């Protein structure tokens, strides 16, 4: 097969099914007149009109900022506490049932709880995101620190590596595959909580705006919001995979799908 042929095949492989889906969508919306399914062209137009405007500044960026703030808070707390708990077998035995319980609480029920404690401002949303994201990070860090290679750990002791450099080169490095797995789970939980906390009580943000469109029966705008959330999830997952590949470039088990 020559170069052009190969390129055409590649484009077909990547874009064929999506193009087919859009065509089906177009045909369906033209044939059925279903009020809830506007034509793809109409949604694209609504997307451009709605989101390439001051809404990016008013709604999208504040949402992202809250997501980042909450996520950062969860990473700091989760990794910090996780290392402390993971390094002490007794502490771990004492904390494990409690942590398993907190992890099993579906994070969205934290929204009404934290609304009670922290009001309905930005602080509440950041706290909701942080308190949902922290458990997978914490538990995975504990697990990663617990499973540190004993030979490596003994070697470090023999060579007198201790304190901060032990933490950095042995503990965090050795636990990083697990920590990254926790961070990945936490990211999708964070996005969910970002949207939900804005749907509850808010005057700005992506979740708020989408619900506003839905209540106003602006169907094409609502679909464009759903599309934007999808894109956001996709881009964040992509960025995360980049980061993961960098951080775990030394680790041979990376990219394995089993969690």
């Amino acid at each position: 097969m020559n170069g052009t042929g190969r390129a055409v095949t590649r484009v077909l492989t990547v874009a064929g099914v999506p193009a087919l889906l859009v065509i089906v969508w177009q045909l369906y919306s033209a044939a059925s007149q279903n009020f809830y399914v506007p034509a793809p062209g109409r949604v694209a137009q609504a997307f451009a009109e709605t989101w390439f405007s001051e809404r990016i500044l008013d709604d999208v960026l504040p949402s992202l900022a809250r997501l980042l703030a909450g996520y950062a808070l969860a990473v700091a707390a989760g990794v910090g506490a996780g290392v402390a708990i993971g390094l002490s077998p007794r502490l771990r035995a004492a904390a494990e049932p409690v942590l398993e319980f907190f992890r099993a609480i579906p994070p969205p029920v934290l929204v009404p709880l934290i609304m009670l404690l922290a009001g309905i401002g930005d602080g509440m949303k950041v706290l909701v995101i942080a308190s949902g994201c922290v458990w997978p990070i914490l538990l995975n860090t504990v697990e990663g620190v617990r499973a540190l290679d004993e030979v490596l750990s003994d070697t470090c002791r023999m060579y007198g590596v201790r304190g901060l450099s032990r933490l950095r080169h042995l503990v965090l490095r050795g636990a990083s595959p697990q920590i990254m797995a926790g961070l990945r789970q936490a990211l999708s939980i964070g996005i969910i909580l970002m949207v939900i906390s804005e749907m509850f009580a808010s005057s700005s943000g992506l979740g708020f705006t989408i619900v506003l469109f839905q209540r106003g029966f602006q169907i094409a705008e609502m679909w464009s919001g759903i599309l934007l959330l999808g894109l956001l999830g996709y881009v964040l997952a992509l960025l995360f995979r980049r980061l993961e590949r960098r951080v775990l470039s030394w680790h041979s088990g990376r990219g394995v799908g089993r969690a």
Partner: protein
Amino acid sequence: MRRGIGSRIGYGAAGLGGLLVVMEAASRLGPVDERFLPPASEILGALAAELATAELWIALGETMWGWALGLAIAFCAAVAAGMVIGSVPGLRAATHSTVEFLRPIPSVALIPLATLLFGASLGSTLLLVVYAAFWQVLIQVLYGVADVDAVAHDTARSYGLSAWSRIRHLVWPTALPYVMTGLRLAAAVAFILAITAELVIGSPGLGLSIQAAQSAGAVTTMYALVVLAGLVGVAVNVGVRALERRVLAWHPSVRGEAPV
């Protein structure tokens, strides 16, 4: 390093007890306002009182029904789709971009759509649960099907096994550990989304009860219901793990595992 199971349980109980004491003390002695964090004893008392009412069991039943039905639909659809995509040559490459795009879409993005299409009913719960759980299982099935040993596959072909018996006796057992991992992840996600749908859209169930308790200012009841949601979550996790061990009892990864 090895410690007896008994002392582990002892430490765990001490941890739980410590948490309860701290919660009790925090609100009784004053640092936290009792209106915002009731003492642990009152929360547990409210939980016991709630457990004696029929409404709670009906709400819990509705949540679990939405969870189980949604999970079952997503599981069957994902296993079927995964087997087809994984077995037909070229289909996997062709669908890769679509799957990778649709998978990270947060299912809560579908909340407005569910509200419009189904309103506050079981349909909304199912839409969210099925969407969220489907991808978890599908991805694992695809990994599992890709993991089939090429030699075993060729052997099965040359012995003239039909497509169906190849799936039944070769692909399915190979993929099963992955499928169970997918089921475990999906079960947890499905529970989260079932509660979310009830909480945000107002479909009947435990989430709606929590929402109602919050609106009514019944703080202690709300905490009790959140604790109950956590306990159900633990039960879901433990149950699926037990199922996984049972189904995979023949598999080396389980056979070699020390009892947990």
